[in-house]
Structure formats: structure tokens, C-alpha cells
């Protein structure tokens, strides 16, 4: 490697390191402050907890006890899991169908899905909220089909991309082996789609878990999700914010999705077709 490339590389490394620090620093701040007493957080937010300011898990206990965060947690988990399962099942089948059955109508549907990725949520949110309330979708069950709608654009796009690269002969072999289309899908196609399904699951789980606007509009402050609960806690009762409990809630809100990501990431887009065809 010549010196010019070396210099360039060290420069990029430094730049990326700086960016990483900028992104990670807020998380570090939250984590660190969640162990400090609530009076020290506001005064000296950047100081590491010491013997005097360290309060152990007191903030966590306070945070959990206040503000119905356990309910919010369960609600969010229910919505996320339900929506992700619905998205995976419906969009994978849709993608398989529109890729395999060639027609003008299917092509139009495909582009409609692509188009839905471009439309910003803010543009449709008020009309959509009104429609959803009319349709009685403003509860934790009703919000799942709404998430299915918002998640399907990207998911159909990703599944379609993968199905296009899948050799058709495998499905034909299944048909000859006695499978109906449904059986072909669930016994042969879906297992092959698994890595894509996991990628789609992670992407959707992350934004649905962290989403604020949609649950706030549809569920309001009665059926709070985690992000809504946190927001309300931060507004507090006229200035008396429990910053310690707040930090602890933030940490608790981040943990599940990170754990989910770590469990799944090894499956992301790993070639499973190897060995199916020639080679």
C-alpha cells in the first residue's frame, strides 16, 4: 500500500470514528445518567456517577413504578409482534404472487407498493387518522392493520427482489411433487425466504417499536405505547420532571429492540439457495 492511500485511509478512519462517537454519545449519556441521582442529572449531566451521585437501580425502580410503563411496554410488544408477523406473512405471499404471476394488474400493484414508500407519513397522517377512527381502528388491535399498510411498501419490495432471484424450478418440482400453491408457498418458498423475512422483521420491528406519531394519533394518551409514555413523562407535571426515572425508562425502551437485533443479525441475508441448483 502506498503512502497516499495510507494517509487517505487514516483520514477516513478518523472521520468515521468521529461520526461513531457523535452517534453513540447520546446513548452513553442516557445510560450513565440513568444511574445518577435525579438532582445531579440536570446540574452536571456530563459527569460520570461517583460515590456521591451514584444511586444504583433506584431510578429504574422509580421509573417502573410511575407512569404505567409496564403496561406501555406490554402494549408496545403486542403491537410490534403482531404487526411484524402480519407484515411478514402478508407481504411475502404478495411478493411471491406478483413476481410469479405476470400480468399488467400485478405490475401496477407492484409499482403502487413502491410508490407508497415515497409518500411521507406526515402528508397523510390527519386524513388517515380520521379514516381510522371512523373504521374503529383506534385501539391496539386496529393499529396492526395500519402498520401492515405502512410497512408493506418496503417489505414487498425486499421480498420481490429475493423471489426474482429464486429459481422457478424449485417451485415447479414442488408442484410435481404434489403441492398445491399454498403448500408450495409454506413448505418450500417461505423456508427459502427466511433470511429475507428476518431482515424485513428487524427493519419493521425497529420502527414500529420506536414509532411515536402513529400511536399518539390513534391511541392517544389512554393506551400509551412506550414512546408515548416517555414523551408524557418528559413533559412531566409542570416542571417537576423525574429525570432519573426518565433516563431509566429510555434505557429500558432501547434494550429489547437491541437484543432482538443481536439475535437476528447473524441470519440477515445469508445465502440459503446455495446447493439448490447446480454449482
Amino acid at each position, binding site marked *: 500500500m502506498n503512502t497516499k492511500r495510507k494517509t487517505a485511509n487514516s483520514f477516513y478512519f478518523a472521520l468515521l470514528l468521529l461520526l461513531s462517537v457523535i452517534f453513540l454519545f447520546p446513548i452513553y449519556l442516557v445510560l450513565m445518567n440513568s444511574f445518577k441521582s435525579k438532582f445531579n442529572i440536570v446540574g452536571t449531566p456530563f459527569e460520570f456517577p461517583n460515590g456521591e451521585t451514584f444511586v444504583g437501580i433506584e431510578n429504574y425502580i422509580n421509573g417502573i413504578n410511575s407512569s404505567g410503563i409496564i403496561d406501555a411496554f406490554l402494549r408496545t410488544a403486542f403491537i410490534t409482534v403482531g404487526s411484524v408477523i402480519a407484515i411478514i406473512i402478508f407481504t411475502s405471499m404478495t411478493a411471491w404472487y406478483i413476481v410469479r404471476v*405476470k400480468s399488467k394488474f400485478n405490475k401496477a400493484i407492484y409499482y403502487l407498493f413502491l410508490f407508497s414508500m415515497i409518500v411521507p407519513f406526515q402528508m397523510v397522517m390527519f386524513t388517515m387518522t380520521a379514516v381510522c377512527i371512523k373504521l374503529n381502528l383506534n385501539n391496539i388491535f386496529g393499529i396492526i392493520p395500519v402498520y401492515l399498510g405502512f410497512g408493506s411498501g418496503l417489505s414487498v419490495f425486499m421480498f420481490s427482489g429475493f423471489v426474482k432471484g429464486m*429459481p422457478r*424450478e*424449485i417451485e*415447479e*418440482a*414442488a*408442484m*410435481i*411433487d*404434489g*403441492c398445491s400453491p399454498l*403448500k408450495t408457498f409454506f*413448505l*418450500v418458498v417461505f*423456508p*427459502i425466504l*427466511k433470511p429475507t423475512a428476518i431482515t424485513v422483521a428487524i427493519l419493521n420491528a425497529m420502527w414500529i417499536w420506536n414509532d411515536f406519531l402513529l400511536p399518539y394519533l390513534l391511541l392517544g394518551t389512554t393506551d400509551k405505547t412506550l414512546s408515548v409514555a416517555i414523551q408524557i413523562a418528559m413533559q412531566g407535571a409542570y416542571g417537576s420532571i423525574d429525570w432519573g426515572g426518565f433516563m431509566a425508562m429510555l434505557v429500558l425502551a432501547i434494550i429489547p429492540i437491541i437484543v432482538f437485533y443481536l439475535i437476528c443479525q447473524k441470519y440477515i441475508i445469508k445465502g*440459503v*439457495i*446455495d*446447493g*439448490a*441448483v*447446480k*454449482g
Partner: protein
Amino acid sequence: MASISLKNIKKTYEDGVTVIDNLNLEIKDREFVILVGPSGCGKSTTLRMIAGLEEITEGELYIGSRLVNNVSPKDRDIAMVFQSYALYPHMSVYKNMAFGLKNRKTPKDEIDKKVRAAAKMLDIEKYLHRKPRALSGGQRQRVALGRAMVRDPAVFLLDEPLSNLDAKLRTEMRSRISMLHKELKTTFVYVTHDQTEAMTMGDRIVVMKDGVIMQNDTPQMLYNHPQNMFVAGFIGSPQMNFIECTVRRDKNGFHAVFEEYDYLLPERMNGPLSLYTDKEVIIGIRPEDMHSESFYFKPDGANTVNLHVDIAEMTGSDYFLFGTAGKKRIVAKISAAEEIKNDTVCKLAVDIDKIHIFDKISENLICD
């Protein structure tokens, strides 16, 4: 047990291109039939229509005595081996083979018996628990065969099953598939673009070109009596030599005349050739029907050709001579008794008895 009958079959793809038009073919029960032809001639399309994977635009397809145009693949009692093998990547070899039986609700112990018997026959018992990606190409190929075998189908369809294998494995699998056919006693329809596979494996060969059957015959008949120039050129390697000549008639009979050569043609050709006096025809001579002059014991030494040898390839027992006679390019295959050098002239005798004569315009056989 099943015969297959294609009656006036037509296939037009969605893009409006007609790939096959008015195809008629009868395949007898237990026959090993080969569809052969250059890439893109519609072999796979034909096979896939028999399998039910491709809709038939027009015509009738019978398997046994049953009209199956609208019968789904799973109810046609067929099995298919794909060129790409198309194994289920997420299932073990055992499950790949058992899948079809399981879908048909075969009892578990019967499935086990059949899968193990097939695995034994194909020498893949050791790999039953492996996933396809942990197998070599040849092993995958055998799994694909096994998956088709266990179902005891009435018809076996194979689409270029050996074309992804290396030369040595291909030879081995060729005889394995031939043996399989003898043991299973079912109808085999085998697609290939490889004439060696076609000639060595089939009871009957169907040569196709642009969706049309050029000839449908036994390997011997195809080789010795090709009905047109396409078949004559397609079967045999190196290719048959085609030489344009003029037909002349004198008191001795008919002659084929080109450059400075004049061959008296066998008497049996007199009838068909009478319409071609003084007209141009194309004669076909297989490279192996030319001989080095000293080894050719025909009394008259008239049918000779002076071949200017550009390249002489020694294969051990034979020489392949690539050269020219006048302006015509000619390939000859002669016994390697004496040494032949590049850039020499070699006097060869043509076995005029084995000559084929084709019409120049229709390219169909006149006589042979």
C-alpha cells in the same frame, strides 16, 4: 405404465411468439425417447408441456389413454429431473426424496423403505442426512434422480440432466441412467443438446429444429439414413462433409461431378436421380467413409480425392484430417497406420456406397 401422445401441439408464449407449431409425436410405453436439437429449438418447452408446467396453446396431449391438457402436474403421474436439479435447499437429502411421497400421504415406513432403496441404488446412502449445499454436483444430480424415482411415476421426464457435470461424471451418469431405465421399466423422455448422449442412450431419437421434428428414428437409422441435411450434420462428429456437385448422366449411369472429380454413383440411385440430370445437388460423405488409399480394397480406384491436409490430428487409433480439396473444406477420419504430416497432400478413397445425396433447395434426402 404409460404411452404419451402429442397431437397437433402448438405453443405460443405470452409474448406472442409461437415456439412449437403442429407437433406430432407418439411415445410408446417403456420407451426411452430422446429429444435432441440445438439450444432454443423448443425441447424444454415440449417436455414442460408434457409435465404440465407449460400450458398447451392448441392440440391434444394424452398420457396413457387420458387427455391431460387440463390436468395439473401433480396428477399426471410423472416425475421430472431438472437441468438445475432444483433440490429443496432447506431439506436434507432424505427429506428431499421423501417430500413427494409425504404429500401423497404414503405411510412413513413405506416412505423409509422406498427412499433407502433408491438411495442404495444411486449410491447416496451416506449423504441422506446432508443438505444439498454440502453435496457435489454429481451427488446432487443423483439426489434429483432419486427424488423422481421414489415416486414410481409412469413417465420420467429429464431435461438436460447431465449438462452441468464434468465429462467423466457425465459418461458415468449416462450408463447409470440407461441402467435405471432398464430396472424401472417406465417411459423415459430425455432432453439433451448433446448428440453423444442421444446416440448412446435412446431407443429412439427425435431430432428437432426450430420447433419442428426433423427426424424421428432409431440411432442406427439416424446415423445411416439421415432424412435431411440438418440431421446429417447434427448427428456424427466430426460433421458430415457436404459437397456441392452437378449430376451428369452417361451410358454407365449417374455421376457426381465437382472440381476435377467425377464419381460414378451406385446403380440403386439411378431412379431417384433421373429427375436431377445436369442439376446441382449436395452429396454428403461422413469423415469415416473416407479411407487412406492403401487400405481401401475396392477394385476401381476411381473414387479418390486429393486432400491438402492443413491439420492432421492424431487420436491414437485414428487421424482426423482437416484440409481442402480444391475449394471445398473436407474432414476425413482415417486409420492411423502411417504417419501423415501437416501441409501435405494425401490421396483418399471415398466409399461411394455410403454416400448421401440431398436436394440443394429443400435440403431433403434424395437417396442414399
